[in-house]
């Protein structure tokens, strides 16, 4: 424990590192929107990919997987690649269809792995060839677990071999390469599927088991919290969703005196500490609205206790910053379905639904079997939520390959499995890029948070192929498509340059340093100060403001490694990526208003008027989150 706490102290150092980054992004803000454009260009996927290829592609785990998935570079002396892979749609077809990667992987300069085995990988992997071997075995194991020719025996044999190959990674030793550690976690996830941990009816047992494991073993809880905080510091992975959702919520409830957020998975409650921080630090002196949080927890088990604990921490935090706050819980049914009647409603409150999925499984407080999320979303629509925020792993664009029948199921799981591998390799890379020297900290984050997440993601991918899972394209698409017809709420944008300029020029002089600690806050506070002007802009019909979620997310990214990207894939959705890989998406929706909170009448869609401007997140300094988290962490140790 002592050691881990030392790691926490190490985090302090990194935070000061962040503040230097922040300073530079502050100067870019001072330069006005031109710099913002510059930042945007720098982050656009294509440009970023180009840089990835030419500069550091060779050192990239992600690139290794990319090269394996599309090793059609092997056959460049053959005819058109498309004809080369007639029965291979899931291997290359998917990625060919997915945009930037397809255009670049055929570029002969791209591959990390070249034909005669000369590896260009850097010092990361002592045996880069081994990385490829691991990847091929993982893919083969996924193939063996699915499809018309599924063979448990083959899967078992492959997993035995995989475990031999990664066995020395057990202690998260420094000797293990990134790829080996990643492969070890995916091997475990596949083994869980093979062992039948994959539930027949209810899903997410993996996740829940991992979560409850951590929750029920006191000695691990401290680890998990520490790891959670490390992840907060090391990457925008957590904050991205929280800030984007919070920003959308702030915009939606602007001017309302009482706000009621029903949170599907409150986890440690960090998101709401951040929301309170924003509510109480409005520069216009408007007193913060009353905030009530209702945490959804599953019936029985530790989820309820954990939620209660989060509530206790939030209440303490609210009291410390003068945020009027109350906290409650509602239970899911025994079948994990959400029943609107369990939510205590108070007249005059603006109701908000918050649904952050796939966050650190180790900290999650709910199980998430099939149908549970859907019941929550529809239930909240029935209750008349003003806005629904969804943060989830980005599932990419809806794929055409779903159309092919027959092998679709096989390709489906393998493709999704490889996608997860791809995604997590990007997470791995991003963590390493940000914190190259802190292998011990990374090991902790990987073990405590990412490993359970991987198990959950693989299990979901497996279940989804069965046809009873969530839509391949994610909950956002589900909300758009299902009978409920949630309406996309456009995120306020920032790139109306003229409006931006005027707002910024006016805002500058009124900048008030709001950060008591002075750490990192001075830069970020600029984002919040133009709130008053944004209100004016709103009156004049300008739909954009600097405080919008997109710009918030972008500012957030400025604090981290350059490899992070942000993309607005649709007006109501932004996606966090690492280089070319999409990691998480945050989207904002408005349910059709319900006259009666019972069964939703179809076809009655009234646009919900949204105030696009907002009070803004006053400060985006992270030390309050640290203190929020660290306090109980210490307490528990």
């Amino acid at each position: 424990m002592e050691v881990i706490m030392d790691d926490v102290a190490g985090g302090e150092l990194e935070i000061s590192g962040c503040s230097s980054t922040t300073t530079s992004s502050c100067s870019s803000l001072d330069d006005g929107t031109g710099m913002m454009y510059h930042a945007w260009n720098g982050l656009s996927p294509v440009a970023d990919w180009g840089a990835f290829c030419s500069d550091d592609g060779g050192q990239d785990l992600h690139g290794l997987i990319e090269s394996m998935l599309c090793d059609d570079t092997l056959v460049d002396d053959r005819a058109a690649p498309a004809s080369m892979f007639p029965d291979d749609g899931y291997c290359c077809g998917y990625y060919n269809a997915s945009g930037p990667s397809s255009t670049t992987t055929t570029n002969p300069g791209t591959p990390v792995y070249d034909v005669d085995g000369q590896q260009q990988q850097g010092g990361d992997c002592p045996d880069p060839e081994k990385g490829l071997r691991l990847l091929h075995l993982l893919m083969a194991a996924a193939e063996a677990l699915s499809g018309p020719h599924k063979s448990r025996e083959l899967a078992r044999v492959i997993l035995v071999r995989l475990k031999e190959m990664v066995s020395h990674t057990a202690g998260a030793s420094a000797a293990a390469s990134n790829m080996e550690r990643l492969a070890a976690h995916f091997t475990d996830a596949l083994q869980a599927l093979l062992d039948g941990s994959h539930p027949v009816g209810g899903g997410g047992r993996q996740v829940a088991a991992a979560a409850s494991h951590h929750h029920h073993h006191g000695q691990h809880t401290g680890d998990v919290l520490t790891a959670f905080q490390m992840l907060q510091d090391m990457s925008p992975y957590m904050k991205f969703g929280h800030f984007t959702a919070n920003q959308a919520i702030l915009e939606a409830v602007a001017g309302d005196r009482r706000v009621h957020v029903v949170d599907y998975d409150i986890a440690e409650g960090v998101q709401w500490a951040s929301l309170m921080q924003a509510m109480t630090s409005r520069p216009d002196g408007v007193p913060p609205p009353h905030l009530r949080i209702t945490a959804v927890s599953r019936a029985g088990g530790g989820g309820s206790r954990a939620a209660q604990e989060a509530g206790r921490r939030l209440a303490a935090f609210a009291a410390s910053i003068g945020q009027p706050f109350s906290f409650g819980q509602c239970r899911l049914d025994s079948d994990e379905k959400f029943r609107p009647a369990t939510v205590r409603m108070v007249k005059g409150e603006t109701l908000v639904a918050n649904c952050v999925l796939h966050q650190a499984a180790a900290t999650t407080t709910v199980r998430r079997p099939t149908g549970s999320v859907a019941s929550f979303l529809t239930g909240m629509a029935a209750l008349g939520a003003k806005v629904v925020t969804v943060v989830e792993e980005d599932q990419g664009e809806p794929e055409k390959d779903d159309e092919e029948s027959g092998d679709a199921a096989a390709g489906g799981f393998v493709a999704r499995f490889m996608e997860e591998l791809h995604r997590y390799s990007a997470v791995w890379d991003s963590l390493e890029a940000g914190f190259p020297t802190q292998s011990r900290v990374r090991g902790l984050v990987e073990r405590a948070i990412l490993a359970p997440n991987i198990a959950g993601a693989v299990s979901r991918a497996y279940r989804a192929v069965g046809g009873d899972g969530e839509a391949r394209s994610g909950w956002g698409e589900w909300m758009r498509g299902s009978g409920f017809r949630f309406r996309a709420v456009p995120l306020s944008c920032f790139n109306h340059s003229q409006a931006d300029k005027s707002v910024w020029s006016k805002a500058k002089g009124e900048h008030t340093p709001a950060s008591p600690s002075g750490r990192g806050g001075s830069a970020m506070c600029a984002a919040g100060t133009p709130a008053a002007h944004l209100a004016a802009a709103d009156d004049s019909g300008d739909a954009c403001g600097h405080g919008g979620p997109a710009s918030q997310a972008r500012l957030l990214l400025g604090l981290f490694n350059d490899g992070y990207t942000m993309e607005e894939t649709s007006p109501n959705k932004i996606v966090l990526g690492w280089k070319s890989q999409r990691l998480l998406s945050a989207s904002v929706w408005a349910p059709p208003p319900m006259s009666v909170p019972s069964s939703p009448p179809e076809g009655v869609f009234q646009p919900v008027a949204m105030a696009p401007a907002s009070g803004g997140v006053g400060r985006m300094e992270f030390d309050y989150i640290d203190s929020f988290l660290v306090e109980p962490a210490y307490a528990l140790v």
Partner: protein
Amino acid sequence: MPMHISAACKIACMKAMNCHEKEHQELAAATTSNGLDWLEDSISFLTADVDIGGWWSTPPAAQQDDIGSVVAQTLSPPAPRPTTSSPLAHASPSIASPAVSSPSEPSSKKRKSPAHRAASGGHSSSNQRRRSEQGRPGGGGKKGGGAANDRDMRWAEQLLNPCAAAVEAGNLSRVQHLFYVLGELNSFSGDANHRLAAHGLRALARRLPAAVGPAAAAAVRVPACECPTPAFACAEPRLFRASLIRFHEVSPWFALPNALANAAVAQAAARGGEPRPLHVVDLGVSHGVQWPTLLESLTRLPGGRAPPTVRLTVAGPTATPPAPFSASPPGYDFSPHLLRYAKSIDLQLAIGRAASLDSVHGFVTAGEALVVCLQFRLGHAAAEERAEILSKVRGLNPELVVLSELDAGGDGTAAGEFAARLELLWRFLESTSAAFKGRDAEERRLLEAEAGTSLSAEAAGEGRDAWRERMAAAGFEEAAFGDEAVETAKSLLRKYDGGWEMSAAGAGAVALRWKGQPVSFCSLWRPA
């Protein structure tokens, strides 16, 4: 946690290795003492001679025998022999084996038990691969029983067949993927699946350049898959001989067809009023191991019908590359031993070698009973070649033709043929696992190295029915095995693993099956 697992595995590996060594010693002991008890004293020269050097120490007088060169003649009258039943009936009581059609539970358990085996092949880049012997619930399974389960356990084919399809389709990315996977899972010394993966990968790697062109093939990274054991043609002669004898002892793969053939030949020799000279043309893969039993049985033919002279003409290789199991290492010659043995049982034997069937023609003399034994050679010749050889055999107008062949046919496509060969090789490897009781014996490796070459065969295999048509077309009609021959074969089979069965293959032919699946058939033909 995984640390503990790996530690436990190391211990298990070490245990397995210890066991293995012990077993190996036992095996060696068995070979040098009376491991050939199924042949009993009838071929005591083999056992007496098992100081294998004895085979080679006496340089045969006529090393370059050719057609008709009589190597030796033993003219002394047959000595009285103890009246025992046919040697084929000697089921060794020490190797108790349940009835033919019921799978032997103990043996299948045995296969399960050595859970981990360290790969000792030099090719293995990672020194300690765990090779779990597959658990095989339900044992061998009666005919077709648990076939689906069995198929699931055969994971190597689930990688090799798609890989073969990808090779033929020129899908290099898929080939590369499967090569990587096979490269991690193959071992020439693991369980049957790992060994099949090893032989299959090697065959596919060799096939690749021809299928996709050398340039494209060069772009595919091929994992190390060279078989560390040379095949028959390059084997060490003493090991070669020891392996042949051992294989006859522990597996009916060749022993049973040989025994059936011998019984039929002896019967043919006994036909007619007066004892006649017997002439056997050997177009087979037994390398002499088949004949002592025949010679012995000839001396016991009732009523003094033993042939006054026996001539054995060994036909030279028909195919290039030689058919699997047909090659022998340079320096191997069984003639002196067989001649010495014939002398010891007072049988007049002449051994000749014919470069081809054409030269056999000139060697046939009138009044002798001519029998042609076509055993496991013709199937590896090209289709036209088969017809040609058969028409030549027909031209010899033999009294009897014995045709033993593998009962395997693909669908005519390259991938289909490969799948059929793979399936047969699986039966071979699985049955040798049982035959050698899971031991990674030197003999087993040599036999499997040779068997593995069958995957690269050019010619398409043919099933029993196709052969029947082919024989009929060549002007033969099928004859039935006598009851006695079938009975002796049945009792012989009992001494082998319970996975083996024998069944009628129609029109008096006999089929050999492993775990309910066809392996080979043995049939008799006469000129129509």
